[in-house]
């Protein structure tokens, strides 16, 4: 018997497979299982929103005081949370070059937007810092616009499927834009810009900026680790993944870690070492968050 006939026979026997009778209970079971999961998930999300409200209280206090004010200089020390962040950063020299350029909180019945948008002091025109400043402004304004639209779309779908205005308002959706100075010295500055909508984890944006303040240029991994930066980083990352016991990292068949590239994000930590950051889901399951690896020179 040739292979062709056997394969044809198999294709024909698909009919038999498709005649396996579907019990009517199946549809009801599938529906119920999904509904039940959704209900649990919603309860869980509600809890998350409540705890988030509590946590952000200290920060919005400062932000509200400076509501919608353009401030090039003073905002630096207004927010207690920000001052606290700064304590953990070794600031050599006197004043930080990073300033909160705009700080505001806007609320309507659908959402609350809080923002602390940074700018970096720069004397030179046309340097890297200026580019970073422009990019931060562009990213944040675009993010806000897009978030407003996606929340409006969400509301429309919510109402269209039987939800009420009150129910939507009770969701108390938040949009947040903020930054953190990871490292600052006379020579180097490392800054992370964060933006997220709390109802949709996939909207989170993180941008990493590492600046050589001496010549106003971008710091690359090569600058930090030398010519062999790819091998050095890969080796240390692979070592840590191999030692990991959580089982959350994807293996290669699922698109797990293979190598860093020039696009791989990093910041500089308080030891002055680069910390490589992967996006959520990039090399590991969602539960692992955004995996970080400090690379020691």
């Amino acid at each position, binding site marked *: *018997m040739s*292979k062709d006939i*056997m*394969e044809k*026979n*198999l*294709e*024909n*026997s*698909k*009919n*038999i*497979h*498709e*005649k*396996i*009778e*579907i*019990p009517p*209970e*199946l*549809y009801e*079971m*599938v*529906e119920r*299982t*999904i*509904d039940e*999961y*959704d*209900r649990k998930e*919603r309860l869980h999300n509600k809890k998350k929103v409540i705890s988030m409200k509590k946590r952000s209280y200290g920060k919005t206090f400062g932000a509200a005081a400076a509501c919608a004010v353009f401030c090039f200089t003073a905002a630096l020390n207004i927010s207690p949370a920000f001052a606290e962040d700064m304590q953990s950063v070794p600031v050599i020299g006197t004043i930080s070059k990073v300033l909160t350029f705009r700080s505001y909180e806007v609320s309507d019945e659908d959402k609350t937007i809080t923002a602390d948008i940074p700018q970096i002091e720069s004397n030179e025109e046309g340097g890297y810092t200026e580019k970073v400043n422009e990019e931060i402004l562009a990213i944040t304004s675009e993010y806000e616009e897009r978030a407003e639209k996606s929340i409006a779309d969400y509301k429309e*779908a*919510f109402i269209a*499927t*039987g*939800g*009420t205005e009150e129910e939507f308002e009770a969701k108390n959706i938040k949009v947040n834009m903020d930054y953190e100075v990871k490292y600052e010295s006379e020579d180097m500055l490392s800054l992370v810009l964060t933006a997220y909508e709390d109802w949709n*984890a996939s909207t989170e944006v993180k941008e990493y900026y590492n600046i050589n303040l001496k010549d106003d240029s971008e710091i690359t991994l090569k600058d930090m680790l030398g010519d062999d930066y790819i091998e050095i980083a890969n080796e240390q990352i692979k070592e840590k993944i191999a030692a990991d016991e959580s089982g959350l990292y994807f*293996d290669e*068949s699922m698109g797990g870690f293979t190598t860093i590239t020039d696009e791989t994000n990093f910041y500089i930590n308080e030891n002055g070492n680069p910390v490589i950051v992967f996006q959520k*889901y990039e090399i590991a*399951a*969602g*539960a692992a968050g955004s995996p970080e690896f400090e690379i020691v020179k």
Partner: protein
Amino acid sequence: MAEKRRSELAEYIIENQEKFYRLAFSYAKNKEAALDIVQNAIVKALEHQNDIRNKEYYRTWFYRILVNESLTYLRKSGRETLWEPMVLNNVLEKDGGYEKNSTEIYDEVMKLPEEMKTIIILRYYEDLPLAEIADVLQISLSKVKYRLYTALEKLRQNCA
């Protein structure tokens, strides 16, 4: 009023539930067990849905969960399932012709060892490309091909 906004994964599951049931049934050979297997697979998929960024990967990923659930069931139930050809006979009688042969082939497929059976079902009944089957089973493509050809060889002998 309950919110009926469903995730893409939920929609994918609802759309393909019959396929899932049939696959589970080919292992369990029993309605209640097949329903259990499908339900367990759905719960697992929903719980881990954030692991999958790309919805093009849903099928591979869901079949992986489903096949694992089916095999786990067989292991737990501790029985080599015996395929009873009688179950389908009454359905088939009304169709004539080539189906006689198809029934025979189908019965032989059901008698294959699980690892070969899975590959035949995914390839010929679910129309998955071999590379995707490799992904579902998390084995190499050459292993899939090897198993497929041994399975075909075995079927050829048994149907001769």
